[in-house]
C-alpha cells in the first residue's frame, strides 16, 4: 500500500460470501472477493461499478451492516472484527456513519427532522438535553437547511427529496464521525439538486476533515468529486485510478468501458463500445478474471487467478493482459 503512515481506514483482502438457494448445499454468492483499499481523513474515495459489482457490499461491510467472511477492516490500524467480535461498539458506530440512497425510506415518517438529528446527539453524548435542539438546528444549518430551527419540527412528508437527504446527512454528522459512507446519495434526487448535495459532501470533507466513501454508478460525478476511484466488477477490484487522471491513465478494459458508456455531449453515440454488456458470475465463480466473458482482450491466461499490479502511487490494476509496466 502506498501509505507510509497508518491510514484512517484500511480494508485488507475483504471477502463477503452470501449463501443462496436452499436445499442441503446452498450455493455461495461471492459478493466481495479479495478487496483491499485505504482511505484517509479529508479524502473522497469513489467506488464505482454496475449492479452486482459489490460496491454497496463494500459500504455495508465497512459500516459493519454485514460481517465479512474473510479479510479485515482496520480503523486507525486496529482490526475492528478482532477488537469487537460480537458486533460494532457504540464508539465504532459513532465513528463510521452512513447515508443511504433512498431519502424516502431512510427517515422515519412519524418523526420530525429534529428527532432524527437529536437522537444521535443524545445517544452519543454530543449534546445535553438542554442544548440538543440548538445543536440539531446548527447541524441542519450546516447541511443547508436554513434556518435550521425552522426545519426541526417538520416531518419527512413536508420535505423534498433533496431536503430529506440533507436531514440524513445531518443525522450522520451528529455523531461527529471520521468516515461517512454515502451509498448512491444522489441517484434518487432530481438532476438540478444533485450537484448541491455532492458539493455539500465535498465541503464537509474539507471543513470537517471527513473521509468519504462515495458509492455510485455515476462515473462523471465520481471523477468530479473524488480523489481516487475504485472500479469494481463481480465483487473484485479491477482498477484503482486517481480521479483526475481517469481518462488518460485507466488501463482496465472494464474501466475503459465505463468511460466510453458515460454520456458525453460531443461524442459519437454510435462509436463501438470497447467491451460487451453482461452480468458477472458471482455464484460459485471460477478462478480467474470475472470480466473474462465480456472482454475483447481476453486470452488463455485470464482464467488464472488475478494478482494486483501497482502501476503508480495511486494506480493499481488487476488484469493479466494490461498489467505490464510501460
Amino acid at each position, binding site marked *: 500500500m502506498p501509505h507510509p503512515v497508518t491510514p484512517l481506514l484500511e480494508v485488507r483482502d475483504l471477502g463477503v460470501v452470501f449463501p443462496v438457494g436452499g436445499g442441503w448445499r446452498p450455493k455461495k454468492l461471492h459478493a466481495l472477493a479479495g478487496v483491499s483499499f485505504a482511505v484517509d481523513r479529508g479524502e473522497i474515495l469513489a467506488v464505482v461499478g*454496475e*449492479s452486482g459489482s459489490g460496491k454497496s457490499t463494500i459500504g455495508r461491510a465497512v459500516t459493519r451492516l454485514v460481517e465479512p467472511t474473510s479479510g479485515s477492516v482496520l480503523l486507525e490500524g486496529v482490526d475492528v472484527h478482532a477488537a469487537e467480535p460480537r458486533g460494532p461498539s457504540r464508539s465504532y458506530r459513532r465513528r463510521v456513519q452512513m447515508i443511504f440512497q433512498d431519502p424516502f425510506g431512510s427517515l422515519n415518517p412519524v418523526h420530525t427532522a429534529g428527532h432524527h438529528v437529536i437522537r444521535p446527539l443524545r445517544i452519543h453524548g454530543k449534546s445535553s438535553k438542554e442544548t440538543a435542539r440548538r445543536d440539531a438546528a446548527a447541524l441542519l444549518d450546516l447541511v443547508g437547511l436554513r434556518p435550521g430551527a425552522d426545519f426541526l419540527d417538520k416531518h419527512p412528508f413536508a420535505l*423534498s*427529496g*433533496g*431536503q430529506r437527504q440533507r436531514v440524513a446527512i445531518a443525522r450522520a454528522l451528529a455523531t461527529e464521525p471520521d468516515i461517512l459512507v454515502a451509498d448512491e446519495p444522489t441517484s434518487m434526487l*432530481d*438532476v*438540478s*439538486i*444533485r*450537484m*448541491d448535495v*455532492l*458539493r455539500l459532501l465535498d465541503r464537509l470533507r474539507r471543513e470537517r476533515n471527513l473521509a468519504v466513501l462515495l458509492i455510485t*454508478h*455515476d*462515473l*462523471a*460525478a465520481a*471523477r*468530479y*468529486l473524488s480523489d481516487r476511484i475504485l472500479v469494481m466488477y463481480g465483487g473484485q477490484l479491477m482498477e484503482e485510478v486517481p480521479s483526475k487522471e*481517469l*481518462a488518460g491513465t485507466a488501463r482496465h478494459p472494464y474501466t475503459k*468501458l*465505463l*468511460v*466510453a*458508456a*458515460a*454520456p*458525453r*455531449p*460531443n*461524442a459519437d*453515440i*454510435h462509436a463501438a*463500445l470497447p*467491451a460487451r*454488456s453482461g*452480468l458477472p458470475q458471482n455464484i460459485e465463480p471460477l478462478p480467474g478474471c470475472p470480466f473474462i466473458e465480456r472482454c475483447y482482450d481476453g486470452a488463455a491466461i485470464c482464467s488464472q487467478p488475478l494478482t494486483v499490479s501497482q502501476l503508480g502511487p495511486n494506480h493499481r490494476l488487476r488484469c493479466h493482459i494490461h498489467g505490464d509496466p510501460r
Partner: protein
Amino acid sequence: MTEPALDIRSLTVGYQTEAGPLIAVHDVTVAVAPGEILGLVGESGSGKSTLIRGMLRLLGPPGVVVRGSVKLAGRELMDLDEEGLRQRRWSEVSLVPQSALNALNPLLTVAEQITDTLQAHGAVTTAAALARAVELLTLVGLDPVNLHSYPHQLSGGMRQRVALGLAMALDPPLVVMDEPTTALDVVVEREILQRILTLQAERGFAMVFVTHDVSLLLEFATRIGVLYAGRMVELGPVQRFRDGGAHPYTQGLLGAIPPAIDEQREPSSIPGSPPSLADPPTGCPFHPRCDKGRATCRVTVPESTHLDGEHEAACHIL
C-alpha cells in the same frame, strides 16, 4: 411542409382531486416532423409522464385531459372511441415504457406477447406471427432462444429489448419512449440506446424520447423541449442546448450536469427544489429559484415567445 407525425396543440392535462382539478400539464403545443427525434426533459413533477400519458390517452382516472388537441399524422386522437384507439395503438404509435417488467404481462412468454399484438392488428397465422417475433427479437439484438421465456426470466436490459421489439412490431410512424433506459446499468443503457438510434435511422420513424437526463438528449435529439412545473419552458434545436440554452432553468439544468470525462468545467447548481403541483408559485413557476427574476416574474406567467427560427422560450427576461 409535410404533415407532422405528431401535432399537439394547447394540451392541458390534470387530475381530479377532492379539492378540485389539479393541472399537471399546462397548454403544451409542440409538433414532431416525420423522422424527427424530439427529446423531452423534466424532473420529477415536471409533468413529462402526464403529458405523454395524456396525449396517448393512456391516463386513467383521476387523470383527465382538460383540453387540447393531439393529431397523429393529421388525424385527431382526442375524439376517438376505445375501438378507434385500439386500432391506432401499436400500428400508428407505440410506447416503450420505463419498466418493461411492469409493462409486460408476467403470465405470457415473449412469443405470446408479440404474437398477441400482431394478431390483434390483423389476420396473421400463428406460424407467421412467430416467424415475425423471431425477426423482431433479432432486430433488437436479443437471441431468439429467449422467445419462450417469461419476463421474470430475463434481465432488465433483455426485457427492455422485448418492449422495444413490441414497439417495432407493426412498424408505426411514431414511437414514444418514456425513460426507456433509466433503470438500466450504464453499459446496457448505451447498447440499447445505440440499437434504438440505429432502428430509428433505418426505419425513419419519428420519436418522442422522454428522460430526466438532458445530457443523454444532447447526444442524439433533433430538438429538445424542457418541461418545468407542467409547462414547456424552452423548445428548440439541439444545438441551442449544446450552446447552453436560453431559459434560466435550462441553463441551470445544463450547468448542473457533472463535467463529462473529457470536459473541464465547473458545474453549478440551482438553489431550491422543483415546486409542488398542489401549491405552485404565482407567476413564472421558476421565479423562486431564478436569480435573474424581475417584479413581473412573480405576477405573470410568461408566454412562450420565438427567439429565432424554431427556438422558443417562456421567460420574461428574454
